[in-house]
């Protein structure tokens, strides 16, 4: 303004003409206006540039400007530099292509930018200063004929997670591909992974299963039970044991499977690994075995009934005749014959009863009736009733104080079987010893029956408790006319008491059978 005033005063002195002064003054005023406007616009441009610079510098997006043809980077913002850990000097003036991680990444970039100056969401890896890969999502636009503005969004975290997921899936796949069991990975109630065996079980492909709720494949009859089971793992509670669940296959069949669940971490978050064993076939066989056993038991029961019924008149009449031989005019020799008939009838009755006992034991339907009793009187009563004292020299080493809790009648039968066995497989002079032993801290009663009989070959010992197995069966059954059921029954009865029978034997010296019964009966009531 001072300059304009000075110029106006200068004009006035050089050309002291009012008209000229007016012209000069008008020119000066116009000049001032134009100068003010220029100044205003310059200020405006300066403010705009500052704003642009501020946005450029503070953007959360990485921004780089590079040449359209040579890709030389002319400018970047701080965010772009910090993503890749470079300083401005290390990037400015270098081609953008030099930031691509691999030659393949470079090729993809060139291919993409060659097609268009304006691109969105191009995912690629740039190299950080240390040479590591860094995933970015690039979008670019042409700023002018010579410049491209490119923004870079950080997607490194997401890409790493995706890769980890893919790596995990690959790992799961490798680990479970050949597993005969179905294996599922469940997270947030959705199937994240399934192996080929589970697809084989259900008929659904991997992609049909992915993202679905496992409950969608459960047989409606088992759905409630399954939901209850699944509640544990969805709440990340420990899941113990296995659950049998029926699944519906794609073609409408039902498959039974045993499920076990384990908590794991998948992508650092809680997930559940489910192991699924197809037990349909096992169940079918088990049902078949059960059915066959029931049928066999039915046959045995019917046969037993049919065999027992005709024995009743025979036994009754023999009893009548033998009880009053004079009354029926029977001579002594005839009476002896009738007595032998009676022994045979009694033996047949025993065999039928043993067959029935065994079938009941096999069916698992036998209920033990527990009571607490003294052992010594039981054994004495058995020796007396069974007539063993007339058949052998029997010694009993059982303290009077010994009491036990067990099914008294069944234990009576077990000891009876062992005594009968001792008598049957020995010759006079028979010697039988019944011995009890147990220490205070011993959890078991040990009742042994020792004989001086023919003994058992070592290789036959394991089979003597099998039904209808006699060691050297043909020879022995001829010699003793017996079938081998009693030991099998005795063993099963003792096993029902959670005990066992062991045997020690030496050929031509004798055998010792020992009943080992727990002192505390878990199921006793």
């Amino acid at each position, binding site marked *: 303004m001072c300059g304009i005033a000075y110029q106006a005063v200068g004009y006035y002195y050089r050309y002291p003409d009012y008209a000229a002064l007016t012209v000069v003054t008008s020119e000066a005023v116009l000049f001032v206006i134009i100068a003010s406007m220029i100044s205003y616009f310059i200020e405006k441009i300066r403010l705009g540039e500052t704003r642009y610079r501020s946005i450029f510098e503070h953007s959360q997006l990485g921004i780089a400007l590079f040449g359209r043809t040579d890709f030389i980077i002319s400018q970047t913002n701080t965010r772009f530099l910090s993503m890749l850990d470079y300083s401005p000097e290390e990037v400015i003036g270098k081609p953008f292509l030099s930031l691509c991680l691999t030659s393949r990444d470079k090729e993809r970039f060139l291919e993409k930018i060659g097609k268009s100056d304006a691109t969105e969401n191009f995912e690629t890896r740039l190299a950080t200063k240390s040479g590591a890969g860094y995933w970015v999502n690039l979008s670019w636009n042409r700023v002018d004929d010579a410049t491209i503005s490119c923004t870079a969004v950080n997607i490194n975290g997401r890409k790493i997670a995706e890769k980890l997921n893919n790596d995990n899936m690959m790992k799961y796949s490798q680990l479970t591909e050949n597993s005969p069991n179905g294996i599922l990975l469940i997270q947030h109630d959705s199937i994240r992974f399934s192996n080929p065996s589970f697809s084989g079980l259900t008929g659904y492909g991997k992609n049909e299963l992915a993202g679905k709720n496992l409950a969608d494949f459960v047989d409606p009859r088992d759905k409630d039970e399954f939901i209850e089971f699944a509640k544990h793992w969805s709440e990340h509670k420990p899941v113990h044991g296995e659950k049998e669940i029926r699944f519906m296959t794609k073609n409408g069949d039902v498959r039974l499977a045993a499920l076990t669940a384990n908590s794991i971490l998948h992508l650092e978050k809680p997930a559940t690994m489910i192991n699924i064993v197809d037990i349909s076939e096992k169940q079918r066989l088990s049902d078949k075995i059960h059915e066959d056993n029931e049928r066999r038991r039915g046959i045995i*029961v019917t046969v037993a*009934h049919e065999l*027992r019924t005709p024995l009743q008149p025979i036994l*009754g009449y023999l*009893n009548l005749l033998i009880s009053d031989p004079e009354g029926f005019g029977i001579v002594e020799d005839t009476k002896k014959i009738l007595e032998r008939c009676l022994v045979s009838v*009694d033996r047949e009755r025993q065999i039928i009863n043993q067959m*029935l006992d065994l079938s009941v034991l096999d069916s698992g339907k036998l209920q033990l009736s527990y009571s607490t009793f003294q052992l010594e009187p039981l054994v004495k009563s058995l020796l007396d009733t069974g007539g063993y004292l007339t058949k052998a020299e029997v010694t009993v080493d059982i303290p009077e104080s010994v009491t036990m809790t067990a099914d008294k009648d069944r234990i009576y039968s077990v000891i009876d079987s062992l005594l009968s066995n001792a008598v049957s497989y020995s010759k006079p002079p028979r010697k039988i010893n019944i011995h009890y032993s147990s220490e205070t801290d011993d959890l078991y009663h040990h009742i042994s029956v020792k004989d001086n009989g023919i003994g058992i070959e070592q290789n036959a010992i394991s089979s003597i408790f099998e039904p209808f197995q006699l060691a050297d069966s043909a020879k022995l059954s001829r010699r003793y006319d017996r079938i081998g059921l009693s030991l099998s029954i005795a063993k099963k009865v003792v096993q029902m008491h959670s005990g066992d029978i062991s045997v020690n034997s030496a050929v031509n010296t004798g055998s010792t059978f020992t009943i080992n019964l727990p002192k505390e009966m878990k199921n006793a009531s």
Partner: protein
Amino acid sequence: MPHKIMLIEDDRPILDMMEILLKRIGYEPILVPDVLDALKQVKENPPSLILLDIMMTPINGWEFLDKLRGEYGQKDIPVLLFTASPSVEEKIAELNDSRLGVLQKPVSIIELKAGLEKFLAK
């Protein structure tokens, strides 16, 4: 007076033999070969004890027992199931009837006598 023992049994040989056996051990047998007549006979000639076969037609021993105890209200007459069928104990336990027991065929004269005495004493 000897105890009257009613034997409901459709097997004739057993019935004939049991008649002699029961008499021999001091009882008065009432023989009923047809189970359908049994309920009428129980009413007309009440026995001290009933020996009851199970596998009979047209109604079996269990059905007879059900009628005897239920429809006919004869809850006090002791009944011994006289059967060759195994595994009746389970069903007996289910019925929870203190006046119900079992004698497994074939029984010897000693077992029959002991069984009857024990049950009549209850």
